[in-house]
């Protein structure tokens, strides 16, 4: 029983990261059909922003030493700022380009960000001491669960609830949902394209920052690569969930997290190193089964 509880918490906390990542990618895709490959580098950027200006191996955290109530808004603001800035400087000029061109442009931007971080911090992972007392276990129904896992899941739920409320209850949210479904029609009703897109980028950037904070706390290190692996899985989750569907992206994120953890448990020992191959194989099977995604919105069929 406690073992099962442990697995559930593992799956939920891993799925949380994927879900938040998928949400960040799906938001942008919804309003401008851009698959933003720079998203992973936003995550890394936010992690390293906590180190700046220190570039030592055992990082003397500068921003990370700030009190929590300042640090968290600051990092979220950095994520949002970076994301919005990349829309103004780069993506705005690709609004009418084809998806492949936009995708490569976003990749190139991610490449620039990554090498900017490499130039400043070098490729060696750095240790980062952020709320280390959170890794202590707590007792949940007899199972010892790391407190951080519980917090990660709670934060994810809060983010999802907050975002849902924002989308359902506010004027901005209404405009964003409409824009995601039919951007041109929304504009013809007076919805301001730039405002909606910038808002989507800002939220997406904040979600990237949230992942950065969680990852840094979980692993205790800052590594240039840490954002990319989350981003790739998140990217897959948005497609499996049905491009353009925000709930689909979230569910698919949790699904992939769940399948990964489950494979780790049920695969025979010899096959465990190949776990990711099974996960990706399942992804292909899922796409063949439902090419439009599991939760494709009705309008997606004509568009994708």
């Amino acid at each position, binding site marked *: 029983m406690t073992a099962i509880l442990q697995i559930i918490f593992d799956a939920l906390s891993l799925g949380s990261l994927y879900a938040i990542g998928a949400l960040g990618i799906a938001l942008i895709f919804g309003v401008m059909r851009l698959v933003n490959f720079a998203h992973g580098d936003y995550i890394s950027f936010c992690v390293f922003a906590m180190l700046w200006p220190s570039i030592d191996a055992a990082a003397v955290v500068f921003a990370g030493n700030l009190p929590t109530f300042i640090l968290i808004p600051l990092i979220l603001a950095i994520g949002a700022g970076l994301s919005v800035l990349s829309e103004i400087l780069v993506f705005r000029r690709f609004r009418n380009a084809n998806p492949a061109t936009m995708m490569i442009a976003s990749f190139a931007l991610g490449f620039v960000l990554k090498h900017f971080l490499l130039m400043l911090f070098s490729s060696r992972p750095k240790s980062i001491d952020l709320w280390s007392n959170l890794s202590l276990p707590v007792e949940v129904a007899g199972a010892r669960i790391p407190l951080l896992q519980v917090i990660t899941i709670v934060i994810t739920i809060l983010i999802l609830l907050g975002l849902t409320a924002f989308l359902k209850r506010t*004027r901005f949210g*209404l*405009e964003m*949902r*409409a824009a995601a*479904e*039919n951007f*041109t*029609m*929304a*504009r*013809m*009703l*007076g*919805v*301001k*394209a730039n405002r909606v897109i910038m808002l989507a980028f800002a939220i997406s950037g904040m979600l990237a920052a949230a992942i950065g904070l969680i990852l840094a706390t979980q692993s205790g290190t800052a590594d240039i690569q840490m954002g990319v692996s989350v981003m790739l899985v998140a990217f897959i989750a948005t497609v499996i969930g049905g491009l353009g569907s925000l709930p689909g992206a979230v569910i698919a994120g949790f699904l992939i997290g769940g399948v990964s953890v489950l494979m780790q448990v049920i695969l025979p020992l010899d096959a465990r190193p190949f776990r990711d191959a099974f996960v990706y194989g399942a992804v292909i099977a899922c796409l063949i089964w439902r090419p439009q995604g599991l939760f494709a*919105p*009705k*309008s997606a069929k004509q568009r994708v």
Partner: protein
Amino acid sequence: MTILSVDGITVRYGRLTALRQASLKVDEGETLFITGPNGAGKSTLLKAIAGVVPVAEGAITLDGKVISGGSPEDTARLGFSMVPEGRHVFGSLTIEENLMLGAGMRKDRARAGDDLAAVYEVFPMLKERRDKPAGVLSGGQQQMLVIGRALMTGPRLIAIDEPSLGLAPKVIDQVYETLLELRDKRGLTLVIVEQSSTRAMMTGGRMLLLRSGEIVLEGDARSLARGDTLKKAYFGYGEH
């Protein structure tokens, strides 16, 4: 008084010219029908006015302000409300959300509530289902919704692309009845694109015929329909 004026606009899609040197004027409160065969450039004309497709040459002015080269949202904010072909309701949004979306740009948001009530009065069916997603509506109901939504923007001019496409004759009658009523009550200007000229004859108003990207005929709908000038111009015979 002229509310909309289109001066010699040309629209190209790649190497294809969809609209060539088209000019027209629309007076406040009138009804203008734009008709013509498939691919004549009718929808392109509306889209160019709405700012959805770029204009290669010429200028469009709405209420004295140049709108060509601007964005769709700016044009909408100046009082031009477009109902494109194919209806385009936001299927995942509720009916009321669809309507409220149209009210977003109004400066007098307090009046949005009154407008909503007015739209519901015209289309009681929408009120009954206000919390349902718009995707569940039938074709005719969706047409009502998009017209209602266009009204919510507080427009001075509504342009509708093929309002009768795919609707039963009875529903078409209803749609037109509503439109004309709105025109008379609110002083709305109507620009209606229809492939067939029958409606224009029944309703009356001014008519304009597009063929191969050019305006080939213009005049009073009823008198044009009487002779066979229209038919000739429509099919393009008697010229070569």
